[in-house]
C-alpha cells in the first residue's frame, strides 16, 4: 500500500491561511491504514486548523469528510456537489489522489495535507517499511525476494558496497543493508551462485525516469470507449 505521513500543521497553515472555507478531504484506503489521511486524521487536521484560525484571529470555516478512495472517480463523485462548495480542498489522500481530484474540481484548488512517502508494508502496528520502488521491471526473482532498488540506499544491482557493517547500511545503524539480506536469504535458498553474474546496467525507462507512466489494458477499457464514456470522465473535462 501507499504510505504517507502528515505534514506539520505550520506548513499546512501557510498553504491554507488565505482561504475562508476549507474542506479537509480524507481518503480511507492506503493513507488511512497508515494513520495519515483517513477520516480520523482528516478530522484531526480540520480541528487543528480551526484552532489555528482562532489563534490567528482568522475567520475560517474548516470541515472534513472522507471517501473510500480518491483515485477512482466513482468513490468521490457522489459527494462532489458538496465538496465543490468549498474554496479549498485539502486532500489527505496520497499524491495520486491529490492529482486525480485536482483534475476534477475545476476552479477549486486541491492542496496536499500529507506527504506521500512510499509503497510499504506494515510489519507491526504503527511501523511502515518501504519494500518496492515501483521501478517497472521487477528483478525480485534474482535477488531472493528482496528488492535492491527499494531497499538499498544506493539502488545497487551488484552489491553490497563497502559500507555494510554488521548487516546495517552505512546510512544508519537502524537501516538494514539490503544486500546483506539478499546474500543471507539466497544462501538459505541455496541460490547464492545466481549472484555471481554481473547484472548489466538496467533500463530505467520503465521507472519514473521514462516519464509519467500509464498502463492501459485494452481488454478492460475497450467497451467503455465504445460507450463514449471516456470523454465524460476524462481528466478535467467534466466541468
Amino acid at each position, binding site marked *: 500500500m501507499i504510505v504517507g505521513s502528515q505534514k*506539520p*500543521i*505550520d506548513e499546512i497553515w501557510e498553504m491554507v491561511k488565505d482561504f475562508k472555507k476549507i*474542506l479537509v478531504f480524507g481518503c*480511507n*484506503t492506503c493513507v*488511512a*491504514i497508515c*494513520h495519515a489521511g*483517513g*477520516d*480520523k*486524521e482528516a*478530522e*484531526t487536521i*480540520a*480541528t*487543528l486548523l*480551526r*484552532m*489555528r484560525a*482562532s*489563534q490567528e484571529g482568522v475567520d475560517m*470555516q*474548516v*470541515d*472534513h*469528510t*472522507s471517501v*473510500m478512495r480518491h483515485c477512482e472517480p466513482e468513490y468521490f463523485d457522489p*459527494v462532489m456537489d*458538496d*465538496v465543490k462548495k468549498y474554496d479549498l480542498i485539502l486532500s489527505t489522500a496520497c499524491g495520486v489522489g491529490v492529482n486525480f481530484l485536482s483534475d476534477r474540481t475545476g476552479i477549486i484548488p486541491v492542496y496536499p495535507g500529507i506527504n506521500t512517502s512510499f509503497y510499504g508494508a*506494515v510489519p507491526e*502496528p504503527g511501523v511502515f517499511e518501504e519494500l518496492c520502488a515501483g521501478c517497472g521491471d521487477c528483478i525480485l526473482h534474482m535477488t531472493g525476494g528482496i528488492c535492491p532498488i527499494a531497499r538499498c540506499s544506493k539502488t545497487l544491482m551488484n552489491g553490497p558496497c563497502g559500507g555494510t557493517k554488521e548487516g546495517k547500511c552505512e546510512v544508519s545503524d537502524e537501516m538494514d543493508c539490503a544486500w546483506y539480506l539478499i546474500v543471507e536469504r539466497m544462501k538459505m535458498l541455496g541460490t547464492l551462485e545466481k549472484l555471481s553474474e554481473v547484472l548489466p546496467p538496467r533500463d530505467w525507462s520503465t521507472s519514473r525516469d521514462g516519464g509519467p507512466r500509464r498502463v492501459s489494458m485494452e481488454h478492460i477499457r475497450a467497451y467503455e470507449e465504445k460507450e463514449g464514456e471516456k470523454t465524460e470522465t476524462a481528466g478535467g473535462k467534466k466541468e
Partner: protein
Amino acid sequence: MSDGSIKEKNKPHKEWAAELKEQRPYSPCRAACPVNTDVQAYVGLIAQGRYAEALEVIRSVNPIASVCSVICHHPCEQACRRCAVDEPLAVRHLKRFALEKAADYRRNKRRLVKQTRDKKIAIIGSGPSGLTAANDLADLGYGVTIYERHPVLGGMLSSAIPTYRLPRETLQEDIDDIIAKGVEARTNCEIGRDITMNEIIDKHDAILIAVGLSESRALNIPGADVPGVLLAIPFLEDAAFQKKIELGSKVLVIGGGNVAIDVARTAKRLGAGYVEMVCLESAEEMPAWKWEVDEAVEEDIAISHRWGPKAVRRDNGRITGLEVVKVLSVFDSNGRFSPTFDNDTTSFIEADTVIITIGQMTNLSFLEDSQVQVDERGRVVWDPETHMSSLRGVFVSGEVVTGPGSAIQAVASGHRSAMAMHVYLEGHEIEGVLPTYEKEPIAQLPGDVADVIHREPRMKVEHLPPETRCSSFMQFEFGYDEESALKEAGRCRGCGGGAVVDTDKCMACLTCQRICPYGAPLVTSVSEIRSEYCQACGLCAPECPGQAISMVSYDVGEVRSNMSSLVGSVDPKRQEPAVVALICSHHVGIKGFELPDNVRSVPIHCTSRVDIIDLLKAFECGADGVAVVRCPAGACKYKDIETRVSARVRRTKELIHMLGMDAGRIELLQAVSDDGNPYAVVCADFSEKVKQIVLRTGR
C-alpha cells in the same frame, strides 16, 4: 461554528443503537428477562450517574419496576456472563438504586394521558398482569377501568406478598404511575358480587380477565380442617390487611415453594415462637429460590425435607402436630411432579398451627353466567396466540392462564394481552403480531476472555439482622448507597453494548484486531467485532483510522459534539483556568465528580474511549487545559488500556505543541485511590499547573 462534518447526520445515537440491538443477539441478561429489559443499557447509565435515563430504560418495558426492584427473581442475574468470571452482576439491587435515585424525576413526570380513542376497556384484577395491561392501554389512549375486589390495587402484590419484602410505598410508586395516566380504579368491586360479568361485557368494548391464582389449594388429609389449620393465601391476606390472626407457638408450614417461605417468615413476624417448614423436596429440589430459603434459615425457621403430610393429629380438637411419611422421590423419570412414599417410615412433627401452602388455584365462579367458557378442569378456554377467550372481546392474561409464575412473567403476559386488545379494537388480526420476548442471547463468554477479566466481588447489600427483622414487617433488605451502586454497575461487562463496524467505512486495516485486548475483532474482507468477545471497553473506536467503529452503548462522537456546551462561554477575564477533565466513571464513587469550580468534568466510560479529536475539541472550545483522568491504580475493569491512552495523550501533546501551545496543557492523570474524593485532588493540582502555564505563556 460548523459541526465540522459535511456528512448527512445519522439518526440520533439512541435510536440507532436501539435498532441495532434488535438486529443482534441480546445481552444474556436482556434475553433472560421475560420482558427483555435492556439491563446492560440501564446498568451502563447507572455507572455514569445518569439515573433518570436508567429509569426510563427500565420503565419503558416494566410498569411495575419498583415492585420488581425488590421482589424479582431476576433471571437476568442467573444468565449474567459474569458468572463465568466470579459472581453475577447484582441487577436487582441496581434497579432498586436507580429507581430510588430517580424517584423525584419519576413523580414529576406523571401526567394524564389524553384519551384519544373512544373505546372502553375493563380489566378484572390489578395484579402485575392487569396493571401492565392498564398501563399500556392507557398509553395508547384508551379509557381503562380496573376492577379489584380488594380495597387496594396490586392483587397479590398488595394482598399477599409480605411487606417486609415489598413495602406498600414501593408498590404504590408503580400504581401511582399508572393511575396518573387516567386509569380508573374500582376497588372493593368483586365481579359476580358487586357487578355481573355480563354487565361488564355490555359496558366495555374489550375486557381483560387477569384475576390470577388467588385461592390456596387445600390438603385432603385427615384432620386438615379448622380450627388451627390455615390456608396460605387467606393467611397472607389477613396479615397484609393487618387482621387479627390466631397463631400458636409452634407453627408448621406445609410446602416448599416461595409462598411457603413467605408464610413461614410472616408467621415468625406475627410472633410464632417456633416455625418449621415441611416439604416433599430435598434442599436441592425445593422450588423456593435459594436466597429466600437462606433468608428464612437465618430467621431460625427449621426445614424438614422429604416428608409428606399424612394426617393432622389432634388432641381434644387441639392440634398436636403432623404425621408425616418418608418421601422416596418427588419427580418421575420425566421430571414430572409425581411423589412416591415409603409408607413404612413415618414421623411426627409437633405443632399447634398448620398452614397449608401447597399451591394456588383460581376462582372463576364469576364467569358462570357469561359466555366465557371454562373447561372441565376449571380453566378459562383461551388461545395463547391471541390471548382471547372463547368470547370475542374478552381476553385473558397472567397466572390465570399461564399458571404460577413470577411477577415479571405476568408483566410480559400483560403486555401481550394489551397489544392483543389494541390490535383487536383496531380491527386487525392478532395472530403473529404479539411480542414473544424470545430472543437469542450472545454466546457464552469464551474461556480465554473470562481468564483475563479482572475479578471483582459483587457488592453486597445489607440486611436487617434476623433478630431485628423478625420483630416487625419492616423491609429487611437495604438498598445500595451511591458508592456501592456505582462500583457494582462498574462490574457490568457491557455485553451487547460493544463495538460495531460500519462496513462501508472499514478498509480492513487490522488496527482494531491488533489493538483489542480481548481478541474480539476478526478482520477478513471487513472487520467483524464478535460480540461474545467484546467487553465494550471502547479502546478500538478512537484508533480506527476510518472512524468506522461505533459503540452500541454510547455515542463515540458525543464528547466532541457536546464539548462546546460543556466548556460554555469562557470569561476572558478569568482568574482560574478553564479546565476540562475527562474522567473514568468506573470505581469512582459519586464524590469523585465533585471538582473545583473551574474544572468541567466529562464522565466517560473508561478513558480507553478518549479520542485525540475529543481532546483537541476541548482546546478548540476554549479550554486552557485538558486532563484525562484514569480510575485509581489497579481499579481499571479493562485490560491493557494505559499504553494506548497515554500514546494518545502524547500525540495530542505533539499536536498542540505544533500550534505553539505548551504540551503541559494536557496530561494523563490517575485518581488517588485512598482519597474520599479521588479526582478532586489530581484535578486541582493539574488546574494549578495549567494556571502557571497560562501565566507564563498567555492564553
